[in-house]
C-alpha cells in the first residue's frame, strides 16, 4: 500500500516540477521568442520551409487553416495507406509479411493520422519494420504536431491574436519540441534496455526444448514518440506491457511522465500567452485535482481487489490479473488513468482486467476528454468547457458573457455545442448499433455488463482519439474497422474545425475592458464552477452507459 502511494506521489511530483519550465518554453517557441534550441533548429526549419515552398510567416484565415489541416492530413493518410497496402514489396520486411486486409490498413492509417493509434492488429505479426517506422512513426510526429498547432492557434484566437500559420506551427512543434525530446528520451530508453535494431526476430529454445521466435525491432525511438506525442500505438501487440517496450520501473516512470507533459504544460503555456499565468495555474490545478481523484478511485479499486477472489482467499489481495508484476497494482492503475486521460492510449496492463472502478475511471476519462486531454486538442476542449461555463455564469451576473474580454454569442455557443454534441454521437450511436446485433457485430468476449463496457470503450477510445483498447474484443473485422473509423474521423476533425472557427471568430471581436461588473475567470470560484460544469455535462451525457457498464458490474460483484 505504502509503496504504491509513494510511487504514485513521486510520479505526480515530477510532473508538477517539469510543467512550469516546459510550459514557458512552449510559450516562447510559439510567441517567436528565441530559445537555446533555436540555433540548431532554425537552419533545419529554413531548409524545410524552402523545400516545401511554404510562405510560413503569413498568418492564415480560419478557413485557410482548416483546409490546410484537412488537406495535409488527407495526403498523409493516403500516403500511409498506400505504404501499408504495398508493404510486401517494400524494404525491411524481414519476416516476410504480406499486405493486411484493406479495411485494417484503412483503419490503421486513419487511426494514426488522427493521433489515435487504435490498433486492431499486433504490430510484430502484421506490419513490417518499414510500415511501422517509416509510415506509422512518421504519422506519430505529424499527428501530434497537428494537435499542438491547433491548440496554439486556438489559444492565439482566444487571446485576440491572429491564429497563425498551420505549417509553421506544425514544423516548429516537430523541430523544437517533439524531435529534441524524442532524441534524448530514445537514448535514455536505449540505455535502460529497450532494443533498437533492424535485425529479424531471434530464434530461441525454451528450457522445455521448444522453439520460440522472439520479436524485436527499432523499438526505442518508436516508443518515445509514442508516449510524448500521445500516440500510444505499440510496436508490439501488448504495447507497453511488453518487456521490450517498457522493461523496468525507470522506463515506466519516464513513459508515464512524458505522456502527460505536453497537455499539462500547454495549460501553463496558455496562461503565459494570455498574459494571465494565474488562470493557467488555476486550470492546471483543477485538472490535476480531477486527475488525482480519478487515480485514487482506480488505485483503490485495484488495491481492494476482486471480492469474489478475496472471499476464496479469505484475505484482501490487490487485483493483479492482466498486470505486469514488475509494475504492480499502483503503477498500472496510475498508468491506466494517465493514458486514458491524456489520449495517449498506450497500456502497461490490460484495461479489460481492471476492477469496475478502474473501468469506470478509464471510461469517464474518455468521455470527458480533458483530464489533460489529447495532444493539443485536450487543452482546447478544456477552454470550450470554460467558454460554456462563462456563458452560464456570465448570464448569472447580468451581463452578456465574455471570456478574456470577448463576448460569447450565438456563434461561439453553436461551435462549442458542436464539440459537445459530436462526442456522444460518435460513441453512443455506433455502440447502440453494435449492441443491437451482438451476435453478428460485436465479438464480445465477456457477456453482460462487462461486454457493454468493452463496446462503449472501443468507440469512446476512437472518438476521443485515445487508441487504447479495453481489449477482449475481436476487433479486426470489417464492421469494427469501418465503424470505429467513423468515430475516429468524427471525433477528430469536427472538433478541430469548430475550434478553429471559434478561435478565428474570437480574433475579430473587439475586446471589452474589464470593470467591476466583469466576471473574473481567474478566480477559485469560477474555476470551481467550471469543474462543476465539466462534471455535470459529462455525467448527464454518459451516466446511463456508465451505469449499465462498470457501475452495474461493481454492484453485482458484491
Amino acid at each position, binding site marked *: 500500500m505504502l509503496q504504491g502511494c509513494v510511487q504514485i506521489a513521486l510520479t505526480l511530483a515530477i510532473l508538477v516540477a517539469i510543467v512550469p519550465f516546459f510550459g514557458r518554453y512552449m510559450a516562447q517557441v510559439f510567441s517567436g521568442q528565441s530559445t537555446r534550441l533555436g540555433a540548431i533548429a532554425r537552419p533545419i526549419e529554413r531548409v524545410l520551409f524552402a523545400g516545401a515552398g511554404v510562405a510560413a510567416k503569413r498568418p492564415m484565415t480560419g478557413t485557410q487553416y482548416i483546409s490546410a489541416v484537412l488537406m495535409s492530413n488527407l495526403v498523409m493518410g493516403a500516403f500511409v495507406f498506400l505504404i501499408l497496402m504495398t508493404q510486401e514489396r517494400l524494404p525491411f520486411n524481414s519476416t516476410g509479411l504480406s499486405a493486411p486486409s484493406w479495411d485494417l490498413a484503412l483503419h490503421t492509417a486513419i487511426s494514426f493520422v488522427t493521433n489515435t493509434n487504435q490498433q486492431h492488429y499486433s504490430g510484430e505479426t502484421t506490419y513490417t519494420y518499414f510500415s511501422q517506422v517509416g509510415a506509422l512513426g512518421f504519422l506519430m510526429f505529424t499527428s501530434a504536431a497537428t494537435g499542438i498547432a491547433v491548440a496554439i492557434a486556438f489559444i492565439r484566437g482566444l487571446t485576440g491574436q491572429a491564429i497563425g500559420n498551420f505549417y509553421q506551427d506544425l514544423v516548429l512543434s516537430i523541430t523544437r519540441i517533439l524531435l529534441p525530446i524524442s532524441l534524448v528520451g530514445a537514448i535514455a530508453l536505449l540505455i535502460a534496455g529497450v532494443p533498437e535494431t533492424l535485425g529479424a526476430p531471434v530464434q530461441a529454445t525454451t528450457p522445455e526444448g521448444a522453439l520460440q521466435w522472439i520479436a524485436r525491432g527499432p523499438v526505442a525511438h518508436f516508443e518515445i514518440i509514442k508516449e510524448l506525442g500521445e500516440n500510444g500505438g505499440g510496436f508490439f501487440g501488448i504495447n507497453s506491457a511488453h518487456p521490450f517496450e517498457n522493461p523496468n520501473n525507470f522506463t515506466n516512470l519516464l513513459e508515464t511522465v512524458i505522456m502527460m507533459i505536453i497537455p499539462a504544460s500547454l495549460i501553463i503555456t496558455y496562461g503565459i500567452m494570455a498574459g494571465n499565468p494565474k488562470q493557467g495555474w488555476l486550470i492546471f490545478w483543477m485538472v490535476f485535482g480531477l486527475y488525482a481523484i480519478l487515480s485514487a478511485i482506480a488505485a483503490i479499486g485495484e488495491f481492494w481487489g476482486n471480492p469474489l477472489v478475496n472471499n476464496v482467499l479469505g484475505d484482501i489481495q490487490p487485483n493483479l490479473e492482466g498486470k505486469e508484476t514488475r509494475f504492480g497494482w499502483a503503477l498500472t492503475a496510475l498508468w491506466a488513468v494517465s493514458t486514458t486521460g491524456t489520449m495517449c492510449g498506450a497500456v502497461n496492463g490490460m484495461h479489460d482486467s481492471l476492477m469496475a472502478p478502474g473501468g469506470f475511471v478509464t471510461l469517464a476519462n474518455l468521455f470527458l476528454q480533458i483530464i489533460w486531454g489529447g495532444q493539443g486538442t485536450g487543452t482546447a476542449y478544456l477552454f470550450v468547457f470554460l467558454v460554456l461555463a462563462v*456563458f*452560464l*455564469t456570465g*448570464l*448569472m*451576473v*447580468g*451581463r*452578456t458573457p465574455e471570456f478574456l*474580454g470577448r463576448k*460569447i*454569442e*450565438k456563434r461561439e*455557443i453553436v461551435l462549442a*455545442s458542436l464539440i*459537445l*454534441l459530436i462526442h*456522444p*454521437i460518435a460513441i*453512443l*450511436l455506433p*455502440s*447502440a*448499433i453494435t*449492441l*443491437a446485433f451482438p451476435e453478428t457485430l460485436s465479438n464480445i468476449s465477456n457477456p*453482460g*455488463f462487462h*461486454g457493454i463496457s468493452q*463496446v*462503449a470503450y472501443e468507440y469512446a477510445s476512437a472518438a476521443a482519439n485515445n487508441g487504447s483498447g479495453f481489449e477482449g474484443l475481436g476487433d479486426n473485422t470489417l464492421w469494427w474497422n469501418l465503424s470505429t473509423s467513423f468515430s475516429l474521423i468524427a471525433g477528430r476533425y469536427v472538433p478541430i474545425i469548430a475550434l478553429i472557427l471559434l478561435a478565428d471568430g474570437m480574433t475579430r471581436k*473587439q*475586446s*471589452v*475592458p474589464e*470593470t*467591476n*461588473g*466583469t*466576471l*473574473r475567470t481567474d*478566480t477559485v*470560484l*469560477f474555476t470551481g*464552477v467550471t469543474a*462543476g460544469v465539466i462534471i*455535470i455535462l459529462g*455525467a*448527464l*451525457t*454518459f*451516466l*446511463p*452507459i456508465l*451505469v*449499465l*457498464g462498470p457501475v*452495474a458490474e461493481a*454492484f*453485482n460483484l458484491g
Partner: protein
Amino acid sequence: MRQPGGPRQQRRHTPKANLSDLYQRAFKEALGKLNPKIMIRNPVMFLVWVGTLITAVLTLNPNIFGVTETSAVFNGLVTLILLFTVLFANFAEAVAEGRGRAQADALRSTQTKTYAQRILADGSMEMVSSADLRRGDRVKVKAGDMIPADGEVLDGVASVDESAITGESAPVLKEPNSDVASSVTGGTRIISDELIIRVTADPGKGFIDRMIALVEGAERSKTPNEIALTVLLAVLTLVFLIVVATLPPPANYINSPVGITLLISLLVALIPTTIGGLLSAIGIAGMDRVAQFNVVATSGRAVEACGDINTLVLDKTGTITLGNRLAEEFIPVNGHSRAEVAAIALAASIFDTTPEGKSIVRLAEGMGATLDFDRQKAEGVEFSARTRMSGTDLPDGGEARKGAVDAIRGFVRSRGGQAPEDLGRAYERVSNLGGTPLAVCKDDDIYGVIYLKDIIKPGIQERFDQLRRMGVRTIMLTGDNRITAAVIAKEAGVDEFIAEATPEDKIQVIQQEQAAGKLVAMTGDGTNDAPALAQANVGLAMNSGTQAAKEAANMVDLDSDPTKLIDLVTIGKQLLITRGALTTFSLANDIAKYFAIIPAMFASAGIGSLNIMGLHSPQSAVLSALIYNALIIPALIPLALRGVKFRPLSANSLLQRNILVYGFGGIIAPFVAIKVIDLGISAF
C-alpha cells in the same frame, strides 16, 4: 430647459391594466398553444408534447410498439403528467403575454380613432380619418380635438393634455421651433388654441403603437443572448435525445429491456424543460417591466444592452441635480452694496421666465428691491447660446445684463468699462460652493455676482455608488465651469466630469469610450443630442424632447425622467440573471432526476444501491420525478415574471450568491421534493 414632471412616485402611471380574468384567459390560451404549429417554436417543449402523444397511444394499447412491462394505468398517469408539463409551460407564457396585453389594452383605450383636418397642397382642408394620415401630412387641430398622430408643431401655440401617456395632469405648452415643446404625441388632447402639425409617424407606427406591440409580445424578436441560450438548450436536448435513443440496445443486451414510456419519462426529465418552459415568459416579463417604468423601448435588444452598459453619460441638469437652480445670494463687488446688486439683478431678470430668472426676482424682491422704471417701456433681451447672457434694455437707454462671468466681462469691456479685481474672488467663492456664478452689470459697471445654487437630487449619490459596484462608470456633462463642475461631481459621486461641455463633446465622449470597447448609455432631449443618442449603444430620449431626439434614441421615457437610465441598467441585468439562474437550476435538477429514474429503469440489473433516495417503487420513483418536473414550472412562474432579485454587487459576489442559491439549491431541492412526492404517492 426641460419641463420635468414631479418626483416619480407622485405621478399617475400608465392607465392601470385590468388583470381580473388574467388566469382564466391564460389557461384557455395554454390549451390553444398546444397547436403543433405554435409548439414547434419551442423545441424543448415540442419534444415533451410529442412524448405526450406517444404515451397517450400507449395508454390505449400498451403493447402497440411491442410487449412492455408498463401498464395502461401507469402510461395514462405519465401521459397526464406530461400533458400538464406542456400546459404549465404554455400557461407561463400566456400569463406573461396576458399581463402585457392587459397593459396594451389599457394603452389602446386611450387611442381612439379620430378625424383630422388635413391641409392639402393648395391650402384647403379635408376631413380624414386618423388611420389615413401618412408621414409628412400636415393637419390642423384645435381645442378639444384629439391629436391624431405623433407629429411636430409647425405653427401655433397651444396647451396639450398629455396625461394619457405621461400621467402628468398639468397641461403642457406646445409651440414650434423649440427643443422641448415642439413635438406632440398621438392620443393626447389639445385643450386650448390651435396647432398646425406635421405628422411624423405612419398609422400604427407611433409611440403608443410601438409600446403596445412590445408589451403584447407581438413584435418580440429574440435578443442575442436569448438566441445563444436557445441554441444551447436545443443542443442539450439533442444530446439527451441521443442518450435516451441509444439506451435500448445495451439494456436489451443485459436482458433488462426498457419500455417506451420509461424512455420518454427519462427524456422529459433530462431535457431542460424548466428553463425551456419559462424562457419566453422571462423575456416578455422583462419588456413588461420596462413598460411599467413608462419607458418605450424599440427592441428587446436595447433592454438587454442596458445590462451590459459600461459607461453612463449623464447631463448634470435634471439628472444629477434638480432641473432648477435657485438664486441663493447676491455678492457685491467693486464697492457696491448688496441692495444695489439686488436692484440691478431684478432689472436684468424681470423678463426672464426661466425658473432661475424667477428665483432671482423672488430673492431680490425678498430683499426689498423694486423696479425704478416703467416695465412697459423696457425691453427684454433673451438668452442665447452665443452671447451667454440675458437682460433688459431700460427705458433710459441703460442696459442691465446678467450672464456667465466671462460673457459679462466681455460686455463691460465693450462698453468701455473694466472688470473689478474682486470679481474673480466672488466667482471662485461661488464655484467652490458648487454653485453657478452669474455676473450682473449695468452698462460698463459690474455690480456683483448672483450665486445660483444647484441642488443635487436626493439619493443620487447612493445610486452612483451602486453603479460603481456593478462596474458602471458615470460621466457627468455640464455647461458649468470647471470648479463648479468638480464640486458637484465630487458631491454627487460621479466618476468623471466634463465641464463647459458642448453637444459636440457628448458625441466625442461616447466615441472615445466606444473605441475602448465600452458600451455607452446616455440621455438626451434636444435636437443637437440626436447624433449622440444615435451613437450611444443605449440612447434614452425624453418624451418632452424633440422628434429628432426621439427618433435617434432606442428608448423613450414617457415621464421624461433621465434618472431612469439607472433603473434600466438594473432591468437589463435582471433579465439576463433570471435566464442564467433558471438555466443553472434546470441543469442542476437533472442529477436528482437521474438518481430517481435510472435505478427504477434498470431495477432488474441489481443497481438498487443507486436508489439513494429510497424511493418506494420503480413506478412511484418515475412518477415522482415527472411530477416534480411538471410542478417546478408553475412554482417558478412568479420568479420568472418578477425576475431574480438584483443586488448591486460586484460580479464575483453576485456569482457566488447565485451559484449557491440556484446551483447548489438546484442540486438539493429536487432530492427533497422528489422524496416528499414519493412519500405522498406511496401512501395511496
